[in-house]
């Protein structure tokens, strides 16, 4: 029996370890100095790398991201709302906190792609130009700096 367990143990360990996921988590780096792990941490990072159900973050999010006031600065969009609408017209709004972070819990909103997103602050609304087809973290595409393969951060206003 012990021989069987000795043979199976490496397989069990290997089955529980996902090096690709682990690398993605490690690539996000450590917490910013002075910022506790919580709703205000890691603005602009792809939230569901850790909060996507494979850990290490908890709770699990259906979709999440960070919004900023303008394209030209990293001032967070505080007190705004990010709206999602699916093809059936089902909508869900997520409030942005002091870091601009927003999220929907895994049971808050059933994702049905494609999704159409908007950012709103006190009646000022900007629609996302293209639908979201599969990404559950805005930062999968919206990464700074803008470039040939990245859109730059999510923002409300094009100007300052």
């Amino acid at each position, binding site marked *: 029996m012990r021989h069987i367990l000795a043979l199976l143990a490496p397989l069990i360990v290997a089955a529980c370890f996902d090096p690709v996921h682990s690398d993605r988590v490690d690539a996000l780096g450590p917490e910013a100095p002075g910022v506790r792990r919580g709703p205000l941490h890691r603005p602009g990072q792809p939230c569901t790398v850790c909060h996507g159900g494979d850990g290490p973050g908890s709770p699990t999010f259906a979709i999440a991201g960070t919004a900023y006031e303008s394209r030209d600065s990293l001032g967070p969009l505080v007190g705004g709302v990010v709206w999602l*609408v699916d093809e059936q017209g089902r909508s869900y709004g997520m409030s942005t906190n002091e870091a601009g972070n927003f999220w929907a819990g895994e049971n808050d909103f059933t994702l049905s792609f494609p999704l159409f997103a908007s950012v709103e602050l006190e009646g000022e609304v900007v629609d996302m130009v293209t639908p979201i087809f599969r990404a559950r973290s805005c930062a999968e595409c919206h990464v700074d700096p803008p470039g040939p393969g*990245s859109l730059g951060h999510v923002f409300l206003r094009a100007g300052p």
Partner: protein
Amino acid sequence: MIFCFNAHGKSAAPVVALTLMLGACSAPPSGERSKFAVPPREGFEPVSDLLQARCGSLDCHGQTGRSLRIYGTNGLRLDSKDLSGLDGGVTQAAEHDANYASVVILEPEILDRVVRDAGRNPERLTLIRKARGAEVHVGGSASPAGSAGDVCLTSWLAGVLDVAACQSGQVFERPAPR
């Protein structure tokens, strides 16, 4: 020239040379190429624009790691100086060329048969099956059978491109929230 040394520090260059010579003997005659029928590159732009809109977002086929890699103004850019999602941006001719290449090199043998059959049974192509949602596809049914996007692709394969279908297939109606 690559020089190899074995554990004793002796050059293995003769082994490398012999291996290269044997490989050269088994290569096809110089200049001989396989010929596959493909849809024309001329007039591909509406199809390219459809692929951008339906498939080429940065979270899908607008990624360099994809075998079907799609470039365009709102997704992945071919030129490192171009910005994704730039207001008023235009998809460049080279990006249309790259999209064409992406499509025709996916399954050249099957594409050859579909084109020689005037586009009949296009579902032989993985591109069509996945776009229709007839095969497991994380992106779902990007262009269901009979939709404008599907008509665009299949008409292009048949050699009678339906430009209007390609144009309407690019449009996503933002649904009214309920």
